[in-house]
């Protein structure tokens, strides 16, 4: 009898240890499917056509933004800039009117009146990449997109629209001395401001005269 109790206790102890040591779960519950069906093309097209125009209408003049940064950088970046992530890069929707003083392979030089002085910036005409439009628009919230690639794809689709629909007609006609009007996005490193290297990614672009 004693022997049976001993064995029974042993079985209970071993069973308890084994039960507490081993966990069996379905693989499907361990690895959440990552391939969600977010359609970046449709999302970006809708954003471009329906929500971005209103944002562009309220873009700040580049010269006004530059002056605001000069006076109080903290306030200016807080009020006018946006970024989905953490870091020094900030993105702003700006508008400007100026004269094309140089036409390069990858960009044009745009001269803008800024009060008593002139401001020269680059107007990107070739390398339309990065997150400037997506982030400057402030229309995309990082909390809505747990898949990082979805965010990257939104940027890529918005950039494609510029490359395919905004730039070709402009590049065909633009020449040195033309006065142009542009509304677009800029990327700016708030820790190291370099206005001379500023590059505008155009979203609305037209030759005024």
């Amino acid at each position, binding site marked *: 009898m*004693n022997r049976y*109790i*001993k064995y029974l*206790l042993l079985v209970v*102890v071993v069973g308890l240890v084994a039960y507490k040591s081993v966990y069996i779960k379905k693989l499907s519950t*361990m*690895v*959440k499917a*990552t391939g969600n069906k977010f359609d970046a093309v449709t999302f970006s097209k809708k954003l471009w056509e329906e929500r971005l125009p209103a944002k562009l209408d309220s873009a700040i003049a580049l010269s006004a933004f530059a002056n605001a940064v000069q006076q109080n950088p903290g306030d200016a970046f807080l009020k006018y800039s946006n*970024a*989905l*992530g*953490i*870091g*020094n*890069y900030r993105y702003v929707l700006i508008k400007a009117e100026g004269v094309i003083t140089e036409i390069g392979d*990858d960009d044009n030089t745009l001269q803008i009146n800024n009060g008593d002085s002139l401001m020269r910036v680059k107007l990107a005409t070739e*390398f339309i*990449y*990065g*997150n400037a439009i997506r982030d400057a628009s402030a229309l995309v919230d*990082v*909390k809505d*997109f*747990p*898949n*990082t*690639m979805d*965010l*990257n794809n939104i*940027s*890529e689709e918005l950039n494609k629209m510029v490359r395919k629909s905004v730039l070709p007609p402009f590049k065909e006609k633009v020449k040195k001395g033309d006065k142009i009007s542009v509304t677009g996005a800029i990327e700016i*490193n708030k*820790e*190291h401001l370099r206005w001379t290297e500023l590059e505008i990614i155009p979203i609305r672009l037209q030759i005024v005269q």
Partner: protein
Amino acid sequence: MLKRLPYYLLLGACFFIQCKSKTTADKKHKIAVVVSTLNNPWFVFLANTAADRAKALGYEAKIFDSQNNTALESDHFENIIVAGFDAILFNSTDADGSIANVLKAKAAGVPVFCMDREINSNTAATSQILSDSYSGAVAIAKYFTQQLKKKGNYVEILGIVGDNNTWARSKGFHSVVDNYPDLKMVAQQSADFDRNKAMEVMETILQANSNIDAVFCGNDGMAMGAYQALLSAGKADKVKVFGFDGAEDVITAINENKVAATGMQFPKVMAETAAQFADEYIKGRRDFPQKIPVAVELVTNKNIGDYIAYGKK
């Protein structure tokens, strides 16, 4: 035996009571830092910064080195849970293989904050603070294309194939360069983010392809390995090398025009944000974004004066 039964039962009860009291009594607000490897100075910096920040916030902090081994990482998680740590600041060894470990912690009520390396689950970790590798690689690729004047032969050396950063960097890079048909990739090989392996890989590639204009590497260690191979082959002046990380030797190499560019990551920002989030979680906050990108900045010889290793001056 029957006479001794109450003693056995008492002993068993003591065992469980001891286990229970250990997990509650040992709660001294401890934060664990689990890092993929301490063999790479970049990850040493990440782990130390996270631990230092946790200590500064008033926690006891301990670093666990997974030695790029998911099984060892799993052991660390088991020990961390049993030891009653309050949070884990985590740099994973494998985007898929590490998910089970994070879920184990989650089931035990221990929040996990991923640093730099992503895991392929949107529900396992409390939050993931990650370098925006894709966008960083886009910026490098734009500079790469400009430097090569949109044409030439190039090599891509990839990191660990199971790591998401490897592919985020590669995809970001190709999202730009693939638009230029005169830029031709003559070889693409993995060197596991390892400097010596990258040197060997580059030596082999050079034997088959003598006409190379540039090399894009998934991290700075591999960039230095590739540069070493090019130097030995007498091609270091002709071939432009591009890295990713912002490691000390590459910052020096950019200064000396040996390396063309790198993507500066900010391990300090990631580690400190993760520690801060853990502190806020312990104090009651629950609404964390699942993923937060940390900007990667392009470093070239034009703006090298603004940077030091792993960050800004």
